């Protein structure tokens, strides 16, 4: 009984690591642009396909991993420069549908280039790594995510570029006054977010299997995680992600079957938000009169 619970809990953490990454990517872009990138999941999925293609072409796993990350970084920057920048002054809702349009485009291109057939994605973690609570890949997922979160933290805290990017996100005007090229920082932010998303998709792929729609549910959970953690708080989003993963699993195992677990998990999250509108770790919303 306890065993089963622990298994569900830890498994939830493994899934949660994916949601944490996506949530982090969403918050990063939100902090600098005040928009939710609804196409984040599709960007991640596409990068995972790039990795798969490289692996099939004979590249070793980790080489493909790094190259796919590079692709995600560059394509993220490109999307920001070429498309998103044009909508700087557009109304919020218009930007929302631009993201939706982007979602359609990337999804459709992926289906066309890589087919809609469900494919398997290899896991780099030897099966022997697993124990009775967690499969080998699940342990690997958590480890990779934690390492990535650590690297991101160190980057933003202790490097000059990281400081500049944070400044540009917090206060673009003041940043310009110290000579920071804010638009470059924005593009870089999109690149980093894209890379984070790619890590999430590549880690998730062995479990959810590769197909163009694989990231839909994940994006939704990532969005929920970001809100749960307080939309302005990147680390809140990460914690939120792990929390969402656990809630989802426990809801699926103990409350309703897998049929409804997506709905139940989301309903739980919404209830939390209604009672605590700024999220669990967010700052309270101050409205200027």
């Amino acid at each position: 009984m306890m065993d089963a619970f622990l298994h569900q809990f830890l498994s939830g953490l493994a899934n949660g690591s994916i949601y944490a990454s996506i949530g982090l990517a969403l918050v990063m872009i939100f902090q600098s642009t005040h928009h939710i990138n609804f196409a984040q999941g599709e960007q991640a999925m596409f990068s995972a396909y790039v990795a798969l293609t490289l692996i099939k072409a004979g590249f070793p796993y980790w080489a493909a991993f790094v190259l796919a990350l590079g692709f995600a970084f560059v394509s993220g920057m490109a999307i920001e420069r070429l498309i998103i920048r044009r909508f700087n002054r557009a109304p919020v809702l218009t930007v929302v549908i631009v993201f939706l349009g982007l979602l359609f485009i990337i999804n459709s291109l992926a289906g066309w280039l890589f087919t809609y057939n469900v494919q398997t994605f290899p896991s780099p973690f030897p099966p022997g790594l697993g124990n009775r609570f967690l499969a080998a890949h699940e342990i690997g997922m958590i480890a990779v995510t934690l390492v990535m979160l650590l690297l991101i933290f160190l980057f933003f805290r202790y490097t000059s570029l990281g400081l500049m990017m944070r400044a540009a996100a917090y206060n673009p005007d003041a940043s310009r006054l110290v000579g920071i090229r804010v638009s470059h920082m924005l593009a870089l932010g999109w690149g980093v977010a894209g890379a984070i998303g790619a890590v999430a998709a590549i880690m998730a792929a062995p479990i959810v299997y590769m197909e163009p729609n694989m990231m839909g549910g994940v994006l939704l959970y990532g969005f929920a995680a970001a809100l749960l953690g307080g939309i302005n708080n990147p680390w809140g989003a990460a914690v939120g992600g792990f929390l969402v993963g656990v809630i989802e699993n426990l809801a699926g195992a103990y409350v309703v079957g897998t049929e409804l677990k997506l709905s139940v998990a989301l309903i739980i999250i919404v209830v939390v938000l209604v009672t605590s509108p700024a999220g669990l770790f967010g700052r309270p919303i101050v409205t200027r009169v």
Partner: protein
Amino acid sequence: MRQVSVAYGQSRVVHDLDLSVIEGEITTLLGANGAGKTTVLRAISNMHVRVSGEIRFSGQRIDGWQTEDIVRLGIGHVPEGRGTITQLTVEENLTLGACTRGDRNSVAGDLERVYSYFPRLKERRRQQSGTLSGGEQQMLAIGRALMLKPKFLLLDEPSFGLAPLVVREIFGILRRINMEDAVSILLVEQNASLALDLARDVYLLETGRVVLNGPTSIVKNNASVRRAYLGY
């Protein structure tokens, strides 16, 4: 600045302005609320304004340039509201000032110099800037601008909302910076008397036009001008 007009959107706020700051000197720009003083500074930095006319720095035209590029030429702007990035610590804000400089080695030295000007900042170096008092934030803003190693400093009402003692401290530092590092200063102020003590030249702005300009010594000693335009 020559024949400069500045507008926000459709409304023109500054009209046909001619203004020069002598290199190495302190010039002050005075005027009532809404006269357009802040707008003049924003025109130089090209922040949120539409400018027509010529703006030159060391002979080079900078009107129409991006703010970041203007700053990188060596123009530091301490805006109204101070513009400290509240989510970052004091030290992070200061280091930010130097982040675009090429000479990484002297940054640490410059940081110590700024701390020597503003010891209170050193005490609070790891504190989040948002928690600082108004005076400390002003010092932080000036300190950050100094980290740019600017040749020209724009200050927008540094005395605003600060206790007189603190203001005098800050103005003292400004005089030191001007004399020791040969930094030219354009000072926008509401506090006319303090500004006139510090500056060499004065421009008086009224509804977007210059109505008076000249050396402060003359303006200070001319009682009728003082009473008419500066109210004391």
